[in-house]
C-alpha cells in the first residue's frame, strides 16, 4: 500500500516502502488478476440477468425514441403545419399536438419503467457481487487472512462495491442514453440533410479521441485513488479497533498526523481526478460548440440560397444542442466507469485468489466410530510445513495420537506447536505428507464433516455482535436454549451469563467490550462444548482464565468431553497436568514424549521447564 504501484511514482506516493515489502503484491494492495478478469467478472455478474438487461435496454431505446421526436415535430410544424394551417387545413397541426402529447407521456412512462427495470438489474448485480466477495473472503484460508488486512477486505466490500453501484445506477444509464442519442440524432440529421448530418458525424472523431485520452489519464488516477482510500480505511479501522491503547498511550496527535498524510494523499488524488475532468469538459465542449457554429454557418448559407428548408435548419440546430449536451455526462460516466473499473480490478484480484485449503470436490465420510468412545485417532504422516514466504516450520513430522487420549504440547514460542494445531484443524494444509483423522486425509473431508470431527479453541476469543446465546450457538446453530445453557453450565459460565443485564440474551455489543477476556474464553469453550467434536484442540485457550475457571475447563474435559481426543497447547503447566501424554517440541521436532510424571522425573527440557515453573512459585 505504501509502495509505489505500477503507475509512475508521483509525489503523493513517494513514501519509503516498508523494508520487507519487496515485490509482495499483498503489500501493494494489488493482487494479480488474470488478464480480462475484470471484464469476465462483469459479464458473469450480468449473464444471469440477461432478460432484465434486455428489457431495460428496450425501455431505454423506446424512451430515447420518444424523447427525440420533439425537434422532428418542430420541423414538421414549421415546414408543413404552418402552410397547411394557412390553408385552413388543421389536420397536420392536430397531428403534431397528438404526437407531442403521446411522446411526452411515453417519455415519462418509459423513463419510469426503465428506472425500475434497471434498478432491479443493478441491485441484483450488487447483491451477487457483495455475496461473492463475502463468500470468497470467507472461503479463503487463514494464511490469506493473515496477509490481507481486514481493512482491505472491508474496503473491497464497501467502497469498491459502492463505486460499482455508482456506475450501474447512474453511469450506465448515461452511457446508453448518450450512445442512443448519438445514434438517433445522427440518423435523423443524416435523414434530414445528408450534408449537415455528415458534419455532425465527423465531429465525433475528435470527441472520441478526447474521450480516449481522458479515459487513459483518468484510469491511472482512479487506480491510485482506490489504493489511497484503502490506506485511509486501514488506518481508520485500526485506530477505532485499538481505541484503548490509542488513548492510554496518547497516540491521538501522532495518529492525527499519520492520518493526515494518508488523508491528504487521497485528497490530492481526488483533486487530480476532478481537474482531469475539468480538462475534458473544456475540450469536449469546445469541439461541440465548434461543430454547432460550423453547421449553423453552412446551414444558414444554404437556407439563404434556398437549398435548405428553414424548418430543417431549426430541427438540426435543436438536435445539435441535444447531441452535444450529454458529453459532460459522458465524462461523468467515464468517471464512474474508471473508478468502478479500478475497484472491480481489485475485487477480481481478490476473487482470483484460490483458497489454499480448498474444499474437496468429492468428499469422503469419516468411518463410523470404532469404539464407544466419541474420540478419533489422529495421525501426522510424514508432514512437512513451510510458510509460503519461506521458512520451514515443521521438517518431516510423524505422530500418532490414539483416540480418546489427551495430549499436551509444550515448547517455547516458535517451536511449531500452533502450526501443529493449525494443521490438525486444517487451517493450513501440509506442504507435504498427510494429516489423517481415523485414516481419512483431512483434505478429503467436507467442511461439515471436518468440523464435526475437529474443533479448535484459540486464545483469541472473538465475540460477534449479537447475544451471548447466539455466540455460544455458533458451536451448533440448531442448538436449543437448554443445550446452550447446559454447555455454559458445564464450563462454569452460567453464573456470569445469568448475572448479565439480559442473561443469555444480552447483546455483547462491539466485540464483547463489556465481557472480560476470561469470560470470553469461557464463552468460547461453551461453543466448543456445544459443537461436541471428536477431536478438540485447545491452543492457549485458558490463558486468561483464573484458577477456578481453568479447573472448570479441566473438569468439563473429563466429564462432558470424556473420551474425546484432545490436543492441549499450553504454556502453563497446570493445564498440562491433565494430559495423558506430553510432547515437548523444539524447532519443529518432538524432543520429549511421555507421561507428565515420566518427563518430570527425567532430566530433559520438560523437567527443566517444570523446575523453572516451580521456582517461580517458590
Amino acid at each position, binding site marked *: 500500500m505504501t509502495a509505489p504501484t505500477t503507475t509512475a511514482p508521483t*509525489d503523493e506516493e513517494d*513514501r519509503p516502502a*516498508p*523494508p520487507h515489502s519487496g515485490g509482495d503484491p499483498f503489500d501493494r494492495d494489488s493482487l494479480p488478476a488474470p488478464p480480462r478478469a475484470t471484464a469476465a467478472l462483469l459479464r458473469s455478474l450480468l449473464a444471469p440477468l440477461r432478460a432484465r438487461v434486455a428489457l431495460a435496454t428496450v425501455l431505454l431505446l423506446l424512451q430515447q425514441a420518444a424523447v427525440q421526436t420533439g425537434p422532428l415535430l418542430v420541423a414538421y*410544424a*414549421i415546414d408543413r403545419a404552418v402552410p397547411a394551417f394557412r390553408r385552413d387545413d388543421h389536420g397536420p397541426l392536430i397531428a403534431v399536438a397528438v404526437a*407531442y402529447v403521446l411522446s411526452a407521456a411515453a*417519455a*415519462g412512462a418509459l423513463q419510469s*419503467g426503465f428506472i425500475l427495470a434497471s434498478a*432491479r438489474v443493478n441491485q441484483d448485480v450488487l447483491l451477487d457481487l457483495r455475496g461473492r466477495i*463475502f463468500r470468497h473472503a470467507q472461503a479463503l484460508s487463514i494464511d490469506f487472512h493473515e496477509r490481507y*488486512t481486514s*481493512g482491505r477486505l*472491508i474496503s473491497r466490500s464497501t467502497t469498491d462495491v459502492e463505486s460499482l453501484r455508482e456506475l450501474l445506477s447512474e453511469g450506465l444509464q448515461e452511457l446508453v442514453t448518450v450512445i442512443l442519442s448519438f445514434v438517433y440524432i445522427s440518423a435523423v440529421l443524416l435523414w434530414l440533410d445528408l450534408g449537415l448530418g455528415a458534419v455532425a458525424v465527423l465531429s465525433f472523431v475528435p470527441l472520441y479521441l478526447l474521450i480516449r485520452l481522458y479515459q487513459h489519464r483518468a484510469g491511472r488516477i482512479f487506480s491510485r485513488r482506490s489504493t489511497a482510500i484503502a490506506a485511509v480505511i486501514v488506518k481508520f479501522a485500526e485506530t477505532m479497533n485499538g481505541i484503548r491503547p490509542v*488513548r*492510554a498511550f496518547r497516540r*491521538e496527535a*501522532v495518529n*492525527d*498526523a*499519520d492520518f493526515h498524510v494518508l*488523508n491528504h494523499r487521497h485528497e490530492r488524488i*481526488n483533486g487530480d481526478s476532478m481537474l482531469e*475532468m475539468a480538462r475534458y469538459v473544456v475540450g469536449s*465542449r*469546445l469541439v*461541440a*460548440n465548434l461543430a454547432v457554429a460550423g453547421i449553423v454557418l453552412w446551414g*444558414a448559407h444554404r437556407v*439563404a440560397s434556398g437549398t435548405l428548408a428553414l424548418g430543417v435548419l431549426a430541427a438540426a440546430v435543436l438536435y445539435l444542442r441535444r447531441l452535444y449536451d450529454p458529453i459532460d455526462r459522458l465524462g461523468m460516466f467515464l468517471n464512474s466507469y474508471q473508478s468502478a473499473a479500478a475497484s472491480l480490478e481489485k475485487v477480481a484480484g481478490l476473487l482470483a485468489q484460490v483458497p489454499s485449503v480448498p474444499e474437496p470436490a468429492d468428499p469422503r465420510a469419516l468411518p463410523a466410530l470404532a469404539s464407544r468412545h466419541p474420540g478419533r485417532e489422529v495421525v501426522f504422516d510424514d508432514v512437512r510445513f513451510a510458510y509460503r514466504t519461506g521458512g520451514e516450520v515443521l521438517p518431516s513430522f510423524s505422530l500418532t495420537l490414539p483416540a480418546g487420549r489427551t495430549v499436551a504440547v509444550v515448547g517455547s514460542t516458535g517451536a511449531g506447536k500452533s502450526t501443529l494445531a493449525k494443521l490438525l484443524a486444517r487451517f493450513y494444509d501440509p506442504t507435504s505428507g498427510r494429516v489423517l483423522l481415523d485414516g481419512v486425509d483431512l483434505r478429503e473431508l467436507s467442511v461439515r464433516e471436518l*468440523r464435526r470431527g475437529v474443533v479448535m479453541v484459540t*486464545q483469541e476469543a*472473538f465475540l460477534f*455482535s449479537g447475544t451471548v446465546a447466539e455466540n455460544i450457538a455458533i458451536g451448533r446453530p440448531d442448538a436449543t436454549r437448554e443445550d446452550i445453557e447446559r454447555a455454559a453450565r458445564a464450563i*462454569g459460565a452460567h453464573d456470569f451469563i445469568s448475572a448479565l*443485564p439480559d442473561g443469555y440474551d444480552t447483546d455483547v*455489543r462491539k*466485540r464483547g*467490550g463489556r465481557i*472480560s*477476556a476470561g*469470560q470470553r474464553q469461557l464463552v*468460547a469453550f461453551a461453543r466448543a462444548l456445544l*459443537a461436541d467434536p471428536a477431536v478438540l484442540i485447545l491452543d492457549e485457550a485458558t490463558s*486468561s482464565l*483464573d*484458577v*477456578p475457571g481453568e479447573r472448570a475447563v*479441566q*473438569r468439563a474435559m473429563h466429564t462432558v468431553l470424556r473420551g474425546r481426543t484432545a490436543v492441549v497447547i499450553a504454556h*502453563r503447566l*497446570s493445564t498440562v497436568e491433565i494430559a495423558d501424554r506430553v510432547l515437548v517440541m523444539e524447532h519443529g521436532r518432538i524432543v520429549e514424549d511421555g507421561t*507428565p510424571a515420566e518427563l*518430570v522425573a527425567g532430566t530433559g527440557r520438560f523437567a527443566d*521447564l*517444570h523446575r523453572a515453573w516451580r521456582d*517461580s*512459585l*517458590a
Partner: protein
Amino acid sequence: MPTTPTPPSTPAEERSDGPTGDPPRNRSAVRSLLRLWPYVRPVRARLLTAAVVAVVASCTGLVIPLVLKWIVDGPVADRDTGGVWLGALYLLLLGCAEAVLFGLRRWLVARPLAGVEASMRAGLYRHLQRLPVAFHDRWPSGQLLSRGTTDLMLVRMFLAFPLTFLLVNSVTIVVGVVIMLDQEWTLGLVLLAPALPVMVVCWLFEKRYSQVARQAQDQVGDLTTLVEESVLGIRIIKGFGRHRSQALAFRDLSRTLRGTELAKARLLAAIFAAIITLPELAVGAALVLGTVQVADGELSAGTLVAFLSTALALRWPVESIGFLLAMSQEAATATERYFEVMDAEPESGTAVPAGALPAARAATAPPRTPAARPAPERGPEPTPAPAPATPTTGTTPAPTTVPGNPDVPETREAPAAPAAPATPTTGTTPSNPDAPGATDIPSNPDAPGPPAVAVVRATPVAPVVGGLRFDAVRFRYPDAPEDSAPVLDLVDLHVRPGETMALVGGTGSGKTTLTALVPRLHEVTEGRITLDGVDITRMPRATLRELVAVAFEEPTLFSASVGENVLMGAGGHAGAAELARALAVSQADFVHSLPHGTDTQVGEQGLSLSGGQRQRLALARAVVGSPRFLVLDDPLSALDVHTEALVEAALRRVLAGTTALVVAHRPSTVLLADRVALLSGGRITAVGTHHELLRTNAEYAWLMSGAADTAERATEADTEPSDRRPRAAGPTAPDETPDATGATGPADGTSTRPGRTKDTTTEGTGR
C-alpha cells in the same frame, strides 16, 4: 425550487444542537445541509465564484438561441451571407466562452472540494479518537467507517453538483423563462404552467425519499459491521465451519438493503415520470400555439425557433432537478449521520478546536515526533506543511480560504476547554522533559483550565497521601440503567508509593474495569482516584496518561515498526537505549531474529506476531517510558513458563521503581507484588500479603490455591484432577491451603515494609 439549499453566500446560522439522542429524522434536509457550513466556509469564495461562473456559462447557453433567431430572421431572411458569417462568429465565441466557463467552474472547485471532504474526514477521525471509550463500546467501527467514507463522498458530490446546479439551474430556468416571456408572453405562460405541480411533486418526493435514503445508509453500515466481524473473527468461523451461516446472515442483510434500494428506485421512477412528462406537455402546447401564431402571422418563424430551442435548452435543467434533489437528500442524511458522531461529547479536556478546520490541520501536522516514525517523508511530500498556506487548497494559492474559523469550534467543544487553537496534545512532543513526575510536567496548553495545572504544580509529593489511591470509587457503565448494580461499588484501595499491588478477583469481577479507571478510559461514577494526592480528574488527561502506563490484556499492535510500537509508550523522549532496556525486560529477544529487527513492520500491514510475542511487546511498551505508575492487566497470560519466569525476574526490577497495580490470575504473577488486593462483589474485600490472604481469606485461597497444589500434582502421575476440587458455589477453604502456603512465595512478609525506599527492595522481593 422549494428545496434549493441556501446558496453558499447566505450566512448560515450555527445552531447548537440538542442532546445527541435527538431523533434526526425530523430535521429537514436543508437544516441538515446547513450544518456543513463550517467546513464549506473556508472555500466559500471559490464555491461562490464557481457558482457565478456556472450561472454565466448556463446563460451563455441561453443566448445561443437568440443568436439563432437573429440569424434566421435577419441574414437568412435577407439572404445576407455576410450576416450569416457574423452570426456564426457570434455562435463560435459564445460556444468557446461556454466551454471555458464550465471548465473554469470545475477547476475552481476541484481542490477545495477534495479539501472539504478530507478535512471533514480528518475532523471525524480526530473527534472519534477523543470520544470516550464508552462511545466506542456502543458504536461498531463499521458504522463509524461508513460515515468516514461513503457518507463523506456523498457530501463531496453534493457540494460539487447539486449545491451548485440547484442554484445554477434555478437561475437558468428563471432567465430562460424571462427570455421566453419576453419573446412571446402567451407562450411563456403556457410553459410555466407545470411549474407548480412539479414543485408539489418534488416536495412530496423529498419527504419520502429522505426516509428511505437514511434507511439504506444505515443498512450499509450494518453490512459493513458484519463484513468487519466476519473478517476479524475468521478463525472462529473457520474453526466451527460456520462460514455458510455467516454467509446467510450476510445475504439476509444485503437482501434487505436491496429491498430498500428498490424502494428508492420506485420513488425515483415516480418523480421522473412527473418531471419529464409535465414540462414536455407544456412544450408541446407551446409548439401548437406558436405554430398557429406563426400561421396567423403574429409571430416570426425565427422567434418560434428561438423560443422552442430555449424551451428545449431548459429541459436538462428541469429534468436534472429530480436527481439533484435525490443527491441532496442523500447528502443530507449522510450529513446527519456524520454529525450524529460529531455531536457526541469528547472526553473533557481533549476537545480539539474543530479538528477539520484548515488552521487546525496545518498546526497539528508538524509535531510528528521523530522517534515515533523514523522513516522521514522525503522529497516533495506536501503534507505536514507548516506554512500558513492551508492544505485544503493544496497548491492553489487561495487567500480566501486561509482565514481561520474562530466561530466554529465553540459549537463542538466542551465548554470547559478554552479554544487552545490547534494545540497538539503536547504530551507526545519531544520537547517534554522526560521526568515523568507529576510535578515536573510543564503547564499543558490542553489543560481544562489554569486551576488544574496549578493544582498539579502546587502539590508536592506528599508522603502521606502518595501513591495510587482509590477513594470510595463507584463505577457503573454510562450506558447501564440507573438502577443496575454498579460494577465497582465503593472501592477503597491504596497502593503506596513504590509499592506493587496485585489485584486478584474471580472472572468478571471488574478487575479490568478498575484498571481502566486509572488512565481515565472510563470516568468514575462516584468517588475519586488520586495519584500522589492529586485527583486524576484535576489533571490534564495527557499528563495523567503520561504518568500512568498501561499494558492491556489484549495486546494491540499498530501498523508501525516493532520499535515504534514499543517507543510509543514513552511519549517521544526515549531512544534506542530505552528500547533495548524495555525489550530486555519483556524478554522480547525474538525481535532481533525478525527480518528487520526492531524496524520490522507489524500490525495490520505487517508481520503478524503470536499472542505471546504481542504481549511481550505490549509489556515493553508499558515499561519503556519508566512511568511513575504502571498498570498491568494480566501481563503474562500468553507467555510460556520459561519466558514467564524470565520476564518476572526482569519485571521485578522495574516494579521496584514504580507504583504498580497488576491484575493477576496466578500465584506466579501475584508474587511480583508486595501486597495483594482481593476484588469481590465490586469491593476490595481484603488486602494483605499473598500468604496472609491464603491463610485468612477463603475466597482468595480458592482463587489461588489450585495453582499451588498443581505444583504438587504435576509430580504425581495419572491423577484424576476432576475429582480433586469440588466445584464450590462459593468460596471454600480447601484443605490443601496450608500446604500450598508453605510451598509458595517468600516468607518475608513484604507487607510489613510499606515505607521502605524503592531501590533497596529489589533484590529482597520474592527471593
